[in-house]
């Protein structure tokens, strides 16, 4: 287990270095003078001079990277040109909103995906299996921003049951918080539910064919115990790993969902930054997302190793 952890940490460091290099290199894609591009519509020579000094734009590329990564390691992700506030502060401010949305979406995805996957596997080849697969294909093919628009059309415009946009903090009103987040969370969790359903089905099919399941049945255990205790417990490993990988998709999806439902989270921050050409914010958000995703993958691998005795040895 210790060797496994050390190996994973050994891979993590170069990956993080490459990620930081790639995100820093994004700035090089800007056409022309980076200082002019970073200044956006601001053409004040003093501002341009300030930006040149702030980002060491007159220095060679490796030196600029060293300054940038040094700042990042000290928690300095740069400053938003539009809002005039540190990017790290903005990210920390928006993170809880997106965090709540993605966790809710994941709960919805697991609640739909795992039972649907079990039913599809246990009742393989029946109408249940066909229906679950059809729903999964529907989930994978529906663009979440369109599903969001359709849900607003039905539940907000026609029925008037739920608010079409906005966000209410849970500390302000729990009901208000739920009513603003339930639609976006469902929209976000929908596609992930389809992926989780497919993987649960596949893992369950494999597990249900194994010898220990046959032994459990031969012992006279009820089918329910065989499926849930012997089947599902062993099939959950790959689903956990996949769940962590899908968190990345949730963060991607959150960008669009937050835009559709006007939720002031991480996604809205990056989209506003895109329109304002606030490049430091875009870089900061991408860096935080990638770092979070890498750490989540590490956590999933360690969790998988912890529940899988073959990897623990």
């Amino acid at each position, binding site marked *: 287990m210790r060797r496994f952890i050390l190996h994973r940490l050994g*891979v993590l460091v*170069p*990956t993080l270095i*490459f*990620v930081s*290099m*790639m*995100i820093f290199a*994004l*700035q090089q*894609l*800007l*056409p022309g003078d980076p200082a002019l591009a970073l200044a956006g519509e601001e053409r004040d020579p003093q501002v341009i001079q300030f930006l040149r000094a702030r980002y060491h734009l007159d220095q060679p590329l490796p030196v600029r990277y060293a300054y940038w990564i040094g700042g990042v390691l000290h928690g300095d992700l740069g400053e938003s040109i539009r809002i005039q506030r540190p990017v790290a502060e903005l990210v920390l401010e928006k993170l809880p909103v997106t965090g709540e949305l993605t966790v809710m979406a994941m709960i919805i995805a697991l609640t739909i995906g795992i039972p649907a996957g079990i039913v599809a596997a246990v009742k393989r080849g029946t109408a249940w299996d066909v229906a679950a697969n059809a729903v999964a*294909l*529907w989930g*994978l*093919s*529906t*663009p979440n*921003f*369109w599903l969001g*628009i*359709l849900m*607003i*059309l039905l539940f907000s*415009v026609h029925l008037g049951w739920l608010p*079409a946009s906005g966000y209410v903090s849970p500390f302000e009103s729990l009901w208000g918080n739920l009513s603003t987040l339930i639609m976006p969370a469902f929209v976000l969790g929908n596609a992930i539910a389809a992926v989780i359903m497919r993987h649960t089905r*596949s893992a369950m099919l494999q597990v249900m064919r194994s010898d220990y399941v046959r032994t459990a049945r031969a012992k006279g255990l009820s089918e329910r115990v065989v499926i849930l205790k012997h089947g599902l417990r062993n099939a959950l490993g790959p689903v956990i790993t996949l769940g962590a990988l899908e968190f*990345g*998709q949730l*963060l*991607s*999806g959150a*960008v*669009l969902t937050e*835009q*559709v439902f006007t939720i002031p989270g991480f996604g809205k921050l*990056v*989209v506003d*930054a*895109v*329109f304002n*050409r606030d*490049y430091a914010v*875009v*870089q900061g*958000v*991408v860096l935080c*997302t*990638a770092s979070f*995703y*890498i750490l989540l*993958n590490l956590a999933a691998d360690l969790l998988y190793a912890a529940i899988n005795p073959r990897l623990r040895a």
Partner: protein
Amino acid sequence: MTDAIVPVRAETDPRIRELKRFLWRLGRRKTTIVGGVFVALFLALAIFAPLISPYDPIAGNWATVRKAPSAAHWLGTDELGRDMLARIIWGARASLSAGCVSVGLALALGVPMGLAAGYAGGWIEATLMRLTDAMLAIPFLILAIALATFLGPSLTNAMMAIGISATPVFVRLTRGQVIAAKVEDYVEAARALGNPPLRIAVRHILPNVLPPILVQATLTIAAAIIAEASLSFLGLGQQPPQPSWGSMLNVAKGFLNQAPWMALSPGAAIFVVVLAFNMLGDGLRDALDPRD
């Protein structure tokens, strides 16, 4: 006598037998056929848009602003009086070209990188795989948004951003396939005959690892179409007044009360074409890998 031998030869040729078996397995699933038909239909719409489109997709008409679906405008009109059906037909061009071009770019970059990593091994593999891990660490759409932001908003840049973001999947897949293939007897035989490494990789290994890559390419086209629509929805893809399904949905969002039909057809078009590619990809995968 010769005439009698030829068909026997053709039937016992393992490649022809394999192809026949593949086509039989492909045709066995109705969903694959339906997916293939819809993909062909949308490709035809995109190619023959100038001939099929009932109206100009760009020219506005103040007399027909936000008209509900009717005999004259089957899918209604938008906020500038443009025919929705015409814009859906022309939008197929942006979506399908984004899907195909970006996946073509991802294949052009990813397959040689995967081939080099899998076949050469050593520091080449280590470097390429760490780079791939780094790219995979950034969620697909976030990376595409970041690239499109810095490259500037346009359909071409969106296609480049999607293509680059989709590359690591092909690097990983090709490398895995190559590692498995390079210990096969036919590779050993090619090496024993004195073939140079590049020739072995390109002429002997590549053709044998292509099927799973093509399946992945079909499924990635579906993802790329959604990615293009997402970027256009955010204003980073096709620029107005050129039609794109994603940007049409972005505009429709502002008129949900007055003109709900504006939101229905572009989303339905994305859904159907993505579903068709997914069905085709699933069918191809099952036909190539009958174990499941």
